[in-house]
């Protein structure tokens, strides 16, 4: 075994490098796929409703306020199972007016109602705890947000002049919530008023009969088991005036359309990785066998049949590709994790080493290595022993 490894040191190194390239590229793809899938799962798990035509909200949201009376009407629509009022604010409105998946956001949640999202009944907490009803000036932060702001449980976080105690940090979800700050909705309303001069003026003027419970940017709506979410969303549209309703399926389609380029890019990267990594692996394996063509001729002179040699070569190829593949996977993880340590300082993660990726890459390299070895053996077997000896000389 050790003997084989020594004889094939170059081949193993070559295979390791090919597999490492394959796995690192694959891990970058997986990272992006996770991101897209995570977003998809989130929007498919709830119906998002925002206010419309109120002319307020000063650009924080596409719509406007969603007053308490409207929320009540939404709750009454048949098929609706839960409605959670929310306030979503950009952390720093000066940097960007657009809400994107990667933006840092403050999300105020009404903790007196459970999260209606089908796929996210609770957000997974890595350390500390999630928010509870009755919390004030406490915050739970996403993993990327915690990393880029250097936050831990017990840290203080200043938002609009108030200090929040960080009580929990979420698991890395590889999607939007990683950059969110979750606070009780009452706190988010405070921040909103503090941020938004127009809203302050409006409240002070008393022109609109607004109370704190009317200050919502949107609601997350859940549906009853067995109900068709798109149908429920359409009923809300029909029965409740002045709301913007997102059909889950349409939003998912939009999201997919906007990520179509990335999806295509990933397929391209994947194919390239397979072709380049695969070619280098197959080439290395075949070369390692052709290099020993004279040895095969000698063994045949000693009585070895083609089958004897094929068995030997396949056995060795298996050892070589398993070792090379394992070393390559290890190398890729080492490389990716090192880069992610660096990227993690700004809250980024570039690689995701999923088991399906590692298992797939490993199986791919072993199969391809065996195939290359079998092909090379067939080539050798087409020579007479005398020719094999001459060629290797």
């Amino acid at each position, binding site marked *: 075994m050790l*003997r084989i490894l*020594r*004889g094939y040191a170059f081949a193993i190194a070559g295979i390791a490098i090919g597999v490492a390239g394959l796995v690192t590229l694959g891990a970058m793809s997986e990272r992006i796929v996770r991101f897209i899938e995570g977003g998809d799962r989130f929007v498919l798990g709830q119906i998002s409703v925002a206010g419309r035509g109120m002319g307020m909200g000063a650009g924080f949201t596409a719509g406007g306020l969603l007053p308490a009376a409207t929320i009540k009407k939404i709750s009454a629509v048949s098929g609706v199972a839960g409605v959670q009022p929310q306030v979503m604010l950009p952390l720093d409105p000066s940097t960007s007016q657009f809400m994107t998946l990667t933006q840092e956001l403050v999300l105020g949640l009404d903790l007196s109602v459970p999260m209606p999202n089908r796929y996210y009944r609770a957000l997974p907490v890595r350390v500390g705890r999630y928010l509870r009803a009755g919390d004030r000036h406490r915050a739970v932060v996403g993993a990327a947000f915690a990393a880029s702001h250097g936050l831990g449980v017990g840290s203080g976080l200043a938002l609009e002049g108030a200090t929040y105690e960080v009580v929990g940090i979420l698991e890395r979800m590889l999607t939007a919530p990683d950059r969110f700050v979750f606070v009780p909705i009452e706190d988010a309303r405070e921040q909103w008023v503090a941020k938004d001069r127009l809203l302050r003026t409006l409240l002070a003027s008393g022109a609109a009969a607004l109370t704190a419970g009317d200050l919502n940017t949107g609601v997350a709506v859940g549906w009853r088991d067995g109900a068709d979410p798109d149908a429920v969303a359409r009923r809300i549209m029909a029965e409740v005036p002045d709301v913007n309703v997102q059909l889950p399926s349409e939003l998912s389609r939009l999201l997919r359309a906007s990520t179509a380029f990335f999806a295509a890019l990933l397929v391209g990267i994947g194919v390239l990785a397979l072709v380049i990594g695969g070619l280098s692996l197959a080439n290395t394996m075949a070369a390692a066998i052709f290099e020993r063509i*004279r*040895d095969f*001729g*000698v*063994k*045949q*002179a*000693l*009585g*070895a*049949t*083609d*089958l*004897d040699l094929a068995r030997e070569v396949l056995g060795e190829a298996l050892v070589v590709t398993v070792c090379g593949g394992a070393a390559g996977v290890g190398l890729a993880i080492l490389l990716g994790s090192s880069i992610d340590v660096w990227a993690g300082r700004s809250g980024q993660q570039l690689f995701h080493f999923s088991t399906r990726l590692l298992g797939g890459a490993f199986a791919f390299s072993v199969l391809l290595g065996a195939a290359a070895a079998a092909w090379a053996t067939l080539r050798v*077997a087409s020579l*007479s*022993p*005398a*020719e094999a*000896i001459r060629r290797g*000389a």
Partner: protein
Amino acid sequence: MLRASGLVKSYRAPSGEPIPVLRGVDLTVKDGELVAVVGHSGSGKSTLLSVLGLLEDADAGEITYENVCVSVRSRSAKSRARGRWVGFVFQSFLLLPSLTALENVVLAARYTGRDRTEARRRAQVLLDELGVLERKDHYPQELSGGEQQRIAFCRAVLNDPPLLLADEPTGNLDDANGAVIFDALRRRARAGAAVVVVSHRPEAAMGATAVYRLRGGVLEA
């Protein structure tokens, strides 16, 4: 032991032109005989030995070992015939570089289904006879040409083959080492093996039962 009749063999030049090498070779070697084949370089001596040892197919002709016709067999049956009947000694030794001296010798037992422990024991006896036992754990690249050829000789005779084919076995050796190898070959013949040696050295003819010259693709006495 060995009977070859009407062996014809030609190679193809890159242009496709045939290069005739053997044009009808007949040769019989009985048990205990040592036959020397001489001839100038390029006369086809190596080709003849390859064909006799089933390392290469002739275009025509027949080869029998112990009255068994082996030249018509399948590729794998020829492999097994080599393992059972033939030992080879090559000019360039052809030891496997990844194996030690002892392992190279024992390799001869791997494909003939012989007992490994017994093979190791016999290999050490042979290495001792040839004076290279203390080199048994060395790799070929750590050994002199003379030492390598002695080890290659041990490998060739490990299975006690009734037919021993040696192609310029002393071509890369000095006189002293050459004498050791020739002596060992003669001893194999005395022990009953049929031995064919191809060489341009006059010592090859010493003690030979018969000496043939390969010229124009045929053997001359």
